[in-house]
């Protein structure tokens, strides 16, 4: 299918990523080493995974800010269970956070559907609730005593290469998680009826209702899906850091939304692709990484990211105005849109 506008966003992003990469490589050749790139993909796998969930919610015309609390609750319960029982199975540890994430997502989905209130409000409330209860019960205690396989798993790589200094490196297992989930999400959006219905609901909710789509089922699915991904991401986060701090993830909501929006998703729903979101996350990762390689203060990261978001949004707002002027020639719409 040809989606000209969307492709355009992705092409712009790709161009920016390429130009930025060339620039960084010139500044510091270390950037374009496989070692650095694999590292970058590994470190951003948490962000990448939850951004996929946010993408789906945004396409459906919703928004979710509670997924950080969901991820935290899911990983914390997992942490408590495996550190108490010391069951030496990564698979079991991996399977714990998923149903928790889905369950918390289902609560969001039901509330969004039944109250018909702006999902920002609903998920702010559940964010406060999930996180507040967790902090109350856990008293903020960190968990870092994990079974040995859980620790070993974090070092797992798809394949291992040797760097010039003789240090082994490779594509992390968590990058694979990210890629697989990306492929699943892509497949779901393009080849499953539910995926098309998510686009349809985001494009015109009333039309979807009239066409006979089950809105409840779609919204429930969407919020459960981000819950599921938050659960997986919670596991990945715990593995990457080898510890669970209840306050490590909450606060990242808006960064994730920013990644999805940079990737071409719209807060008004109906638009967004997996490829774009991937590039959005990549852009954020490269800027962060580049600053470190250039030995610039890491604090510039946010200044640059903020500028990119505002600039990108301004350009798209301006383009929309131009388009209205071209197509309708109506000043009124131009002033309002």
């Amino acid at each position, binding site marked *: 299918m040809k989606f000209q506008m969307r492709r355009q966003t992705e092409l712009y992003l790709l161009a920016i990523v390429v130009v930025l990469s060339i620039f960084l490589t010139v500044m510091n050749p270390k950037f374009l080493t496989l070692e650095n790139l694999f590292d970058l993909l590994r470190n951003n796998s948490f962000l990448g995974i939850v951004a996929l969930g946010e993408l789906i919610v945004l396409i459906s015309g919703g928004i979710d800010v509670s997924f950080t609390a969901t991820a935290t609750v899911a990983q914390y319960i997992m942490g408590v269970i495996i550190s108490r029982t010391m069951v030496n199975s990564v698979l079991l540890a991996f399977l714990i956070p998923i149903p928790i994430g889905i369950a918390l997502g289902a609560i969001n989905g039901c509330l969004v559907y039944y109250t018909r209130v702006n999902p920002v409000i609903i998920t702010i409330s559940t964010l406060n*609730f999930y996180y507040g209860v967790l902090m109350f019960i856990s008293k903020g205690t960190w968990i870092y005593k994990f079974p040995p396989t859980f620790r070993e798993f974090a070092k797992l790589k798809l394949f291992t290469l040797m760097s010039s200094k003789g240090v082994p490196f490779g594509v992390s297992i968590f990058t694979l998680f990210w890629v697989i989930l990306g492929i699943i999400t892509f497949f779901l959006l393009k080849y499953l009826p539910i995926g098309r219905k998510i686009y349809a609901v985001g494009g015109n909710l009333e039309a979807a209702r009239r066409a006979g789509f089950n809105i409840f089922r779609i919204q429930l699915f969407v919020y459960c899906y981000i819950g599921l991904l938050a659960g997986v991401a919670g596991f990945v986060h715990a593995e990457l850091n080898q510890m669970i701090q209840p306050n490590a993830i909450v606060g990242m909501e808006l960064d994730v939304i920013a990644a999805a929006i940079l990737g071409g998703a719209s807060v008004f729903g109906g638009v967004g692709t997996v490829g774009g979101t991937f590039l959005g996350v990549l852009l954020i990762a490269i800027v962060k990484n580049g600053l470190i390689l250039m030995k610039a203060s890491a604090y510039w990261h946010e200044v640059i990211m903020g500028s990119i978001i505002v600039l990108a949004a301004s350009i798209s707002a301006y383009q929309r105005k131009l388009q209205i002027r071209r197509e309708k020639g109506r000043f009124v719409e131009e002033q309002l849109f």
Partner: protein
Amino acid sequence: MWKNSSFKVGDIQIMALVFLLAGLLLLMSFLTRGKLLEIQSLQAIAFQLPLLGLLTLAQMGPMVSGGIDLSIIATANLVSIIMALSMTRFFPSLHAPFAILLGLLLSLLLGMVKGFFVALVSVPAIIATLGLMIFIRGVSLVITRGYVIAGFPRDFLFIGNGTVVGIPTSFIIFAAFAIFMYILLSRTRFGLELYLFGSNPVATLFSGVDNRKVVFRTYLLSSFLAGVASCVMASRFNAAQADYGESYLLLTVLACVLGGVSPSGGSGRVLGITVSVIILQVVATGFNLLGFSSHLASALWGIILLGVVLFNRLVFG
């Protein structure tokens, strides 16, 4: 006949909030064996409330206009940092009033930037202020390198910690600005135009309202109030940092909605906002007295908001 009136909904919601507040006060004073109503606890509430109160007032304007300002906390922090630097490094001889003036000017400048993007470039408010939030926080981080700037002169500390005839100065500031906002929203042309714009911007455009001016002023006002909040915040903590009070951001949205501001714009009154801020603070202070975690209070806030939302859905359909 006019069950759907936003005004009536507002009235009933404020009444429900007042009952909720009374119930909470009763419950809390019972649980704390009357400690909540002692002078010290009331003063504690009066000391803690102004910061959330002022930030919520800052959030109110953009929300009434149908937008949102995600950058108020970032703005407040940057303003605090500039005031702190002015008092401790650049112009220590010029004292607090100069720093405050500088800070408020900066907040107006930031407001103009936000107004420019939202009103003139027409970037959706949620995206524009999200980007600016990250940008402004970044500037603060670059300036402070993540450190805390602390140790302010005495006269500045008076704002957040002093009292005037037993009433905390900061509370007086909050009360003054609440009254100011009340007058602005209900007694001026700007206020009326803001509500009408928030309900239906097309109709205001066709009625000769300068929509862009209304939106621009809304974000200017919001930033200014964030600047005022920043004085209270810096003074109360006796410190400034890039990421203080970030948990307040979503809380201000919550307080607005609880107080009757519709997320789609066009409704909400200062009275409702004030009651909702008091409720949130009573819960926080009461829990503190009971030795409960502040996080339990935050969980309860979430439940209260969901309760109000469900209440509205059940009563008004």
